[in-house]
């Protein structure tokens, strides 16, 4: 049954050095506030799993939290490179970063398999592509009915899954809507989980009978962090700060500039700054 904690408590209790951590949210609902807390608490040697490392892992990698990244697309969407991620892979700064690289389809299936309690996922994937040559976690099985060779990848079973959602109710159930990505899968696939939410309501009230809801008993803890997805967004609350995504390119390009930005905006701040970020984007929200 999920407990309501502060963000500092949640990270303190759920994220340990050396853990395999998956912070998900497919462009939407990326748990930035939680990542900043992990950085502030100085976690090390993490294996960071995420389809799109995005700014969230660019920051964590640049701050030395990670020793390995498992991913399928490592760019700044619509902008260009993730400079900190590249610097780690190309130059080993701040220290070398091992990578395990998949396709989106394979990772989405691997999260699904993790949620489904299977040891591996099976897909028609990687046909004629080079990734299987450099990733020994891409193997194959043969369909026992047709003889077709299909790709297999291991299920993703993180030590900790961290996601952001729109709201929790008093019982600790979590509801999300819009681009739901692999949010449900990562929580169900993880041994422990943290869900940050925009707000905690007494009851969800009127809703679709098929609303996307994670029951309280599937979640480790819930943390209220208004704006916690910024510069990503929360459908119905505030918009994505596309301008910041563009600005990040220049911030992250240079090691010193990056560190200065992280000190001013992450190390010297707390999760409460996210509410102000979101307010800035509020007038743009629908």
């Amino acid at each position, binding site marked *: 049954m999920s407990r309501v904690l502060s963000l500092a408590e949640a990270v303190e209790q759920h994220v340990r050095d050396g853990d395999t951590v998956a912070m998900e949210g497919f462009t939407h609902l990326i748990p930035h506030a939680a990542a900043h807390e992990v950085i502030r608490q100085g976690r090390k040697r993490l294996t960071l799993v995420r389809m799109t490392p995005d700014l969230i892992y660019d920051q964590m990698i640049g701050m030395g939290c990670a020793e390995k990244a498992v991913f399928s697309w490592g760019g700044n969407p*619509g902008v260009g490179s993730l400079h900190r991620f590249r610097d780690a*892979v190309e130059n080993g700064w701040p220290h070398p970063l091992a990578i395990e690289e998949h396709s989106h389809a394979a990772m989405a299936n691997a999260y699904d398999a993790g949620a489904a309690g299977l040891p591996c996922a099976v897909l028609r994937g990687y046909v004629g592509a080079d*990734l299987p040559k450099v990733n020994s976690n891409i193997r194959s099985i043969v369909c026992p009915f047709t003889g077709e060779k299909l790709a297999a990848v291991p299920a993703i079973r993180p030590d900790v899954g961290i996601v952001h959602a729109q709201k929790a109710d008093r019982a600790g159930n979590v509801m999300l809507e819009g681009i739901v990505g692999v949010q449900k899968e990562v929580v169900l696939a993880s041994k422990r989980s943290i869900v940050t939410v925009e707000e905690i309501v007494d009851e969800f009230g009127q809703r679709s009978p098929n609303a996307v809801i994670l029951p309280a008993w599937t979640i480790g803890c819930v943390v209220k962090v208004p704006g916690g997805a910024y510069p990503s967004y929360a459908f119905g609350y505030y918009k994505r700060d596309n301008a910041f995504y563009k600005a990040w390119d220049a911030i992250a390009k240079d090691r010193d500039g990056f560190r200065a930005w992280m000190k001013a905006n992450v190390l010297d701040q707390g999760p409460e700054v996210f509410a102000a970020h979101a307010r800035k984007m509020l007038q743009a929200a629908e």
Partner: protein
Amino acid sequence: MADYTPNEMMTVAAARALRNEDVCFVGIGMPSAAANLARLTHAPDIVLIYESGTLGTKPTVLPLSIGDGELCETALTTVPVPEMFRYWLQGGRITVGFLGGAQIDKFANLNTTVVGAYDKPKVRLPGGGGAPEIATSCGEIFIIMAQSKRAFVPKLDFVTSLGHGEDGQTRARLGVKTKGPTRLMTDLAVFQPEPGSNEMIVASIHPGVTREQVSEATGWPVRFAANVTETLAPTAKELETLRDLHARTRRAHGEAA
């Protein structure tokens, strides 16, 4: 006829290749501009799908990311990402997928993974994302890429996604049923696979561009179809629609800066 840029010509050429009946798996950037230009001009019923899970989306401004709120707000509905890749892409429901890349070879195989060796890359590119499965699951593939010798190479450093393979015959050999790359739109020309060999050859050249310019911007000995035509220049309506779309997009993405 208004002036236009090579990029605009490339986008317009890509938009025209789309049909009103298509179900299109759209990537960010030029594919998104081309697909929405098609929807706003000759293909109003085209179904646009973005890998973030948005089905039948009709954005009024172009998304910066594959999952901007605009895509979800204007979609028929939005499904989880595993379902998108399983039921919609792998399920064989997409008629056209768009791809691009850092490197392409003459059989339209693409590299968006690394320049240099995989384990010791000179440039670490973003990677494949949806491309490896888009390349084989969509009915056919349209590619949009600006031409240069650095991008149009004799041999890829890494095959991120399958085009027609090493020798043009790989798809059949691997039992892949879909067509693969059927068009390559560049800033200079439109390429199509030569029947039989599946080598990408020039089918039409954009107005004002010479064969020599195309050859010089291609890292392999480029070949031209017997009946190369001149690409129809963008119409005033196409240009106006595309520029309005970009202007709306700039305003939307910049306003909160």
